[in-house]
């Protein structure tokens, strides 16, 4: 803990994010909303991956269930957003409690395979249950939350509805980040890192490892569900491929690319992956090829991800500055 003044990076980040609709076009707002929501999804996964040392291959299940929950409640039941949004977190968290109960009984690759299996079951249900989820066709035309009161405000009032939803998204995602940050900085969060480092030893400082893993699983699932709730609205529809295994692998890539050893690493990973995706697909159709190459280079050159590389560079500069 140094005495040097701490830069309020979080606050600066939120302010920068909030300014996007005022500075950029509709397209930038679109990309920024996508980034903010998937950043929350990736950071929620990292509670398992980076802090507890559990590799989940089925995190999209909770994201998707959150999306269907909010979507169904708002579209079919006319429930307002203030209830439909937290409901996504609650339902995804409950599902994570049920699945997690079985998953934490396994370790390593077996844990990963079981999370994947459960996610594929959820996907199959959403794919086939036409009456509830719209099946393969999905569920289009999820309404925006009622943000008419924003139109009466100066400055903000001139913006489009999608901009208003973006501002709401930024505030909610920032709130979730604040909560998750509290969790990883709490005694509970520290115990999770002992499980990551050495489950056998953790057991012998009196930690009931499976119980802590389950709680981490539930929290990660709940926050993924909240991200999903926002994503369905942003996407103007909820579809079964939200839950498909490729979505789970995409969020894993974001976390690893950005750096799972850092709280905001996965968020940076989401930003870089989505922006690169948008940029590169406008030049070449071989986006997966480019992504694959980038990942290979990163994994070998910077095992700590992008944020890890930045951190190493910053330390080197500091050392040079002192010498």
């Amino acid at each position, binding site marked *: *803990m140094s005495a040097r003044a701490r830069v309020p990076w979080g606050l600066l980040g939120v302010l920068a994010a909030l300014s996007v609709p005022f500075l950029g076009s509709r397209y930038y707002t679109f990309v920024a909303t996508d980034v903010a929501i998937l950043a929350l999804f990736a950071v929620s996964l990292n509670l398992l991956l980076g802090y507890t040392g559990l590799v989940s291959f089925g995190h999209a299940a909770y994201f998707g269930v959150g999306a269907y929950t909010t979507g169904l409640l708002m579209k079919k039941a006319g429930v307002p957003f203030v209830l439909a949004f937290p409901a996504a977190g609650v339902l995804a968290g409950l599902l994570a409690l049920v699945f997690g109960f079985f998953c934490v009984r396994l370790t390593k690759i077996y844990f990963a395979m079981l999370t994947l299996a459960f996610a594929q079951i959820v996907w199959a249900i959403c794919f086939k249950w036409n009456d509830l989820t719209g099946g393969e066709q999905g569920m289009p035309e999820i309404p925006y939350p009622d943000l008419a009161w924003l139109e009466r405000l100066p400055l903000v009032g001139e913006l489009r509805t999608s901009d208003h939803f973006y501002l709401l998204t930024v505030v909610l995602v920032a709130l979730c980040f604040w909560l998750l940050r*509290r*969790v990883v*900085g*709490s*005694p*509970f*969060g*520290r*115990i999770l*890192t*002992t499980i990551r*480092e*050495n489950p*056998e*030893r*953790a*057991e*012998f*400082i*009196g*930690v*009931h*490892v499976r119980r*802590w893993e389950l*709680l981490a699983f539930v929290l990660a699932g709940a926050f993924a569900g909240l991200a999903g709730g926002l994503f369905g609205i942003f996407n103007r529809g909820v579809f079964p491929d939200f839950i498909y295994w490729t979505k789970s692998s995409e969020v894993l890539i974001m976390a690893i690319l950005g750096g799972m050893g850092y709280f905001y690493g996965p968020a940076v990973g989401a930003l870089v992956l989505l922006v690169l995706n948008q940029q590169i697909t406008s030049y070449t159709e071989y986006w997966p090829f480019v992504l694959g190459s980038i990942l290979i280079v990163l994994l070998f050159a910077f095992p700590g991800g992008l944020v890890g590389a930045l951190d190493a560079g910053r330390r080197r500069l500091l050392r040079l500055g002192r010498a």
Partner: protein
Amino acid sequence: MLEVRDVHKAFDGFQAVAGVSLALARGEIAAIIGPNGAGKTTLFNLVTGHLRPDAGAVFLAGREITGLPPHRVCRLGLGRSFQRTNIFPRLTVFQNVQAAFLSHRGRGLDLLSHVEHLYRDETEALLASLGLLERAGELGAFLSHGAQKQLELGIALASEPKLLLLDEPTAGMSATETHETIRLISRIARERGLTLLFTEHDMDVVFSIAQRITVLHQGRVIAEGVPAAVRGDPEVRRVYLGERR
């Protein structure tokens, strides 16, 4: 403090522990010795809940702990160190010990407090008594082997155990490190009134601090008593001491 009553454990038909009984009084310092494969580590694992005995019972301070999972056994006041060093490598030295305090004092499910300053004084005092305070900010992985063993002792002590089981506390140490570690262990055991049970290969260590010695051979107790008696036991000399001297 500890009573082990006729425990048995077999692995795929191999009888690793075949009916061992032993009892430890409060404050006693006892050693278990025996050649490789005598069943010492298996016996430890039966006591600490890492293995469940096929038969027999284990009591800690009068309470039966047979077959309880390790985290429960730990909470009932039994601390242990492992033969292969067992720390949290990518946590700092401070965090290693602090985590044990957090868990022991029931703060492990606290999601709201800031962890940084919790139990700072206790952790620093314990690190100071182990001579690790100057290195509190370093990652556990970067310590020397001897220092890691001391850190592991610190983790075990932070759970404020009544009974401490040390599995080869000086394994892989240089002569100087061994000497220091033994001084440290006996000082801490005395200060805290700990009951101590340890296994050890180095006979000088065993005879310098143990008040009582149990000799295991092929999963059975072949001798037990004060060091002088064990040293003179002809059976022990034949199977164990004789081989090594």
